């Protein structure tokens, strides 16, 4: 606010008077139409003829022309022989199966671990929940799974892969790399041996090292 009373008002009045004479910005619509922007997205609508049949002939011209690649479509070819579709092939398999089924409210079969012997997954789910489905903690998850089931059933590995998002190959590789992880149920002798066997943990190893060297610097 200025010191002189009314100066601000006077400035404003001067500004409006100046704008009074400036060129105007109005676009007179029906006479002067602007082009839609190059990436303009209108509404997609499929037309039906008077018998209620879809007019779309699955020519894919719209899908090819779509600037933002939002159209993916499928249908029978014009002679009614082959099923054709447009878009990335992997999209179709997944969309047909899971999402479509889930949205229609039907149960979703997961073919990933159907061929394998089914095991009770509740213990594994608890473990995964504990480790926050974090693929970074994969070794711990696998160890905990082995502790829970006694071995690593293939179904659990599939389940871990599905839940954590890690590749199955990576999990399989991790599991085969470490010797203390196993894929078969332990036999009776092995179980007894496992009871005796004592894998030196990191802490005890370091304690022994400290004792041997006689140093306390690490603490």
């Amino acid at each position, binding site marked *: *606010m200025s010191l002189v009373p009314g100066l*601000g008002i006077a400035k404003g009045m001067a500004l409006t008077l100046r*704008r009074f004479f400036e060129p105007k910005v109005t676009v007179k619509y029906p006479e002067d139409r602007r082009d839609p*922007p190059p990436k303009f*997205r209108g509404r997609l609508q499929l037309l039906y003829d008077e018998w209620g049949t879809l007019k779309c002939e699955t020519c894919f011209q719209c899908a090819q022309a779509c600037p933002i690649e939002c159209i993916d479509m499928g249908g029978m070819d014009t002679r009614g022989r082959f099923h054709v579709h447009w878009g990335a092939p*992997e999209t179709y398999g997944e969309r047909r199966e899971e999402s479509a089924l889930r949205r229609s409210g039907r149960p979703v079969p997961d073919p990933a671990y159907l061929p394998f012997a089914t095991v009770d997954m509740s213990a594994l789910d608890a473990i995964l929940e504990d480790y926050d489905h974090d693929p970074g903690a994969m070794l711990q998850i696998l160890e905990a799974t082995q502790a829970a089931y006694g071995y690593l059933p293939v179904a659990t590995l599939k389940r871990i892969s599905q839940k954590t998002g890690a590749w199955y190959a990576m999990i399989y590789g991790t599991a085969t790399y470490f010797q203390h992880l196993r894929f078969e149920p332990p036999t009776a002798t092995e179980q007894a041996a496992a009871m005796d066997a004592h894998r030196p943990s990191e802490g005890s190893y370091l304690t022994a090292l400290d004792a041997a060297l006689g140093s306390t610097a690490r603490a």
Partner: protein
Amino acid sequence: MPIEPAHQSADDPRVTLDRELGVFEPVPPYPPRTEREAEFYTLGDGEMFINMGPQHPSTHGVLRVVLKLDGEKVVDLDPVLGYLHRGVEKLCENADYHQAICYTDPLEYVSSLFNEWAPVLAFEKLMDVQVPRRAEYIRVLSSELNRIASHALFLGWMALDLGGLTPILWSFIERDEIVDMLASLTGQRMLFNYFRIGGVNGDLNHDFMSRLGDWMSRATVQIESGNALLNENEIFVRRMRGLGTIDTATALRMVMTGPNLRATGVPFDIRRAHPYSVFPELEFDIPTRSEGDCLARYLLRMDEIKQSLRIIDQCLHNMPDGPVMAKLPRLMRPRPGRAYAAVEGPRGQYSTYAISDGTDQPFRMRIHDPSFIHLQSVGLMMPGHLIADTMAIMASLDPIMGGVDK
């Protein structure tokens, strides 16, 4: 909540009067459900209710405010929401991750890009996606443009609610230029739907860049000259100064964010407080003001426009080359987990809390909107002011009802 039968006794004179004449009092036809409602809907001596909205010339959307007045002085008020409720959170739970962004887009239609950014950021966290740097820069660039557009609109609305007819149209000219610019970048003028998980939809194009360069060369002068209409106007300044004052402690208790909090003197800006995207690399200041009144909130937004121009300038100079979209599968199934992401929008903190259960749809998606938070603080600001100031205070907080009602 069971609703008991209405307790309008036959000997309540006001009720019979209203029944006879068919005039609607804003008193609800059921017993008060809470302590606060009982307190509010009890009239004191010489007080009256007045129903502002849902159809009122200046409620920035479909908001209904029941005012309890003593003459022209506001004693108390009760905002009634829900006229624009669309259940976006529920919709998002039934859409896959890409589709969810489309639903959050029209929440706050004045600054759509920020409504996209928060969920996109949360989903990227869920999926551990690394966004290309060029995409990040484009995001910053376009969203700062959107911030200017939003603030420009605010400045006009503020003046309109105080009775000035002209600034709203000037600010719409400003906004229209930016929105046209963004339309050539994104394809739409209002609901851009531009940010995608892992990047943005489409690179910068020539049309956008030429428009932006043209606008940038005159933006500062243009905005300054338009604002000169009111910044020094005695009537305007006298009305705004000391109006709707809120202090820092109260603002923090009301969990306010954004310009409304910074107008009380707290330099809290998520772009600096909890940096996301490429904001750590960019130079800009966080303007603050200490008064905490409507004038401070008004002027602060002008300062923010200048800072946004600075950021846009830096983005244009530092724009790296490269892809604008990360390589991602079309169908996204993040591992189960939770992610929270917040961005600093023109009205404050927009944030999204997303829970994934391993399917391609979010299990729960919580959308936090600053307008919703700020609107409830009018209950603290308005009592004691005049009815003419209710709209000024509400406009200075800049709520957008699409965001408030979700």
